[in-house]
């Protein structure tokens, strides 16, 4: 499928806006006027471009509460006290599942009890004007962060509401975020979102798009998340998006993590170029450890700092920051700002020394490149270079397979485990299209660990690895 035709898009729009009453307040021309009034300092694409140019790593938290005033106060705190370079608005889980009625219950209860009973900001229920009040009240760019399989209405409202970046994608917001969603439908719905962004682009408004890199956040090998990120970048570019930030969730072994971010940028550009999208502005985002966190706050600071350090040394354009409350629940404004401050201390201390390289990093880059090429070539072949079809058939065939994903359209055959040095490798390959040589690289590395531990690679080892960071280690050694 190519770029969605304008009439098709507009016809669909009319339907989308009807899904909830606030949809009627979205008027494209007026929205574009509003977007034009936003200065460069508050526009994602401009701020990212500058950071990329100056080799800075920007910092961005996650944050969202039920009510607009409280949400604005929270964001202001993160901006002023936490010195966030970029701000989010994390959407609540009901909105993510288009359950606007339940979101409304959450809003009402939050007003009644005086505390946020939603795990994010229900932007659809609040509507365009309240979204703009956020943007008007802040000094840095705003992004929508969520996990919404059908995010069409949310996109309409928030882009009209002045957000300049939109996270997600038809794969990355399906596989880790749903159970029964058809990949065909979520990809199609996200093509709508990309088309909307493409429409803004045609009118001179650049909206940043960010596929969700970490997926399940749990021992996802770089080649798998890279394959998804690149497919979503291609899908977005096809609909006219010109500013794309591809992401990756920290695995914890620094050489692998640095190699992952560097290769992610190179590979994404390679594929965009190959299909003629050489005018896309590509940047990267590194997510601090996305798996289970230690409960102890001092230990959590250690994990946060390690993520910050790796992000800078890898040269990521931005880093998404965790808080010392991560293991417990949505952080208070203070805890959230603390995570930012720890991170900023490191991005600033390390920015002048981010030209690290080593044979280890080179070797990991080579490996990730080969793995990702193996997957993507097989997938693209299967869909005859139709990106949507490729993705759908690729998942069907298990050529891409995200570990620990709840989605039924995911093969769930692949099992990862850490090698002796903590890098994430694959021990059950499922239907991944890897050559025997490539598989043997993984097998050898896992054997090295298994031998050192005097046990076989097994699901128990995987479980040990899942718990490890929260228990203060990286590799889940037997005790």
């Amino acid at each position: 499928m190519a770029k969605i035709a304008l009439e098709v898009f507009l016809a669909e729009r009319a339907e989308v806006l009807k899904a909830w009453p606030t949809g009627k307040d979205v008027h494209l021309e007026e929205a574009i006027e509003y977007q034009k009034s936003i200065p460069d300092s508050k526009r994602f694409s401009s701020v990212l471009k500058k950071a990329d140019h100056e080799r800075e790593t920007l910092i961005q938290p996650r944050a969202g509460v039920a009510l607009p005033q409280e949400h604005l106060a929270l964001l202001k705190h993160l901006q002023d006290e936490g010195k966030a370079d970029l701000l989010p608005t994390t959407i609540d889980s009901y909105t993510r599942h288009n359950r606007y009625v339940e979101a409304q219950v959450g809003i009402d209860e939050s007003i009644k009890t005086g505390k946020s009973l939603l795990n994010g900001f229900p932007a659809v229920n609040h509507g365009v004007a309240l979204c703009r009040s956020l943007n008007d009240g802040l000094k840095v760019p705003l992004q929508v962060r969520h996990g919404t399989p059908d995010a069409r209405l949310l996109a309409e409202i928030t882009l009209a509401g002045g957000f300049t970046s939109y996270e997600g994608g038809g794969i990355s917001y399906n596989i880790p975020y749903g159970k029964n969603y058809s990949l065909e439908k979520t990809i199609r719905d996200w093509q709508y979102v990309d088309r909307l962004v493409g429409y803004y682009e045609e009118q001179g408004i650049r909206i940043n798009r960010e596929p969700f890199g970490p997926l399940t956040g749990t021992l996802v090998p770089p080649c798998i998340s890279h394959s998804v990120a690149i497919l979503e970048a291609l899908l977005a570019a096809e609909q006219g998006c010109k500013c794309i930030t591809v992401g990756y969730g920290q695995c914890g072994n620094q050489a692998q993590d640095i190699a992952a971010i560097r290769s992610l940028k190179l590979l994404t550009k390679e594929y965009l170029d190959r299909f003629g999208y050489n005018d896309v502005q590509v940047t990267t985002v590194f997510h601090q450890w996305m798996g289970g966190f230690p409960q102890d706050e001092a230990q959590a600071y250690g994990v946060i700092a390690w993520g910050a350090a790796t992000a800078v040394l890898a040269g990521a354009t931005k880093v998404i920051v965790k808080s010392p409350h991560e293991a417990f629940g949505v952080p208070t404004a203070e805890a959230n700002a603390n995570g930012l401050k720890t991170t900023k201390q490191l991005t600033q201390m390390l920015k002048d020394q981010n030209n690290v390289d080593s044979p280890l990093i080179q070797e990991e880059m080579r490996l990730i490149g080969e793995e990702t090429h193996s997957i993507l070539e097989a997938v693209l072949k299967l869909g005859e270079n139709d990106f949507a079809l490729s993705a759908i058939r690729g998942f069907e065939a298990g050529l891409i397979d995200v570990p620990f994903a709840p989605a039924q359209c995911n093969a769930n055959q692949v099992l990862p485990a850490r090698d002796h040095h903590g890098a994430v490798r694959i021990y059950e390959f499922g239907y991944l299209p890897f050559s025997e040589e490539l598989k043997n690289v993984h097998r050898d590395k896992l054997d090295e660990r298994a031998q050192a531990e005097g046990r076989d690679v097994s699901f128990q080892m995987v479980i040990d690895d899942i718990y490890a960071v929260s228990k203060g280690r990286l590799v889940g050694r037997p005790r």
Partner: protein
Amino acid sequence: METVVIGVIGADVHAVGNRIIEYALKQAGFNVVNLGVMVSQQEFLDAVIETNAKAVIVSSLYGHGELDCRGMGDRFIEAGYGHVLLYIGGNLVIGKTDFSEVEVKFKAMGFHRVFPPNSDINEGIERLKEDLLKS
């Protein structure tokens, strides 16, 4: 072999803990019916009715547990399944909260045992074995 129903309630998609709980229960000799993520109260009840399970292990991670679990105990009682053990664990409320408050709240909703964030599932299984012996 006792049957236990497990699942993650509401619009919650946190799948990792659920998979480990299934594994741990099987290792401990239980027959496990895993409903996976995004499970409604009614689905839990239906599964219990269908499989004659003696216990339900509900997980809620994403913070909406308080909204999702309302009336759960009553629903089981009304259906005549008040004797089935209801356990819940995870990150039950939004934000870092004093657990004793949380426990009171969820016990009032009909849960027999309530576990704090990051609880060791094997300890939960030990409690379950004891409770099943008693009942």
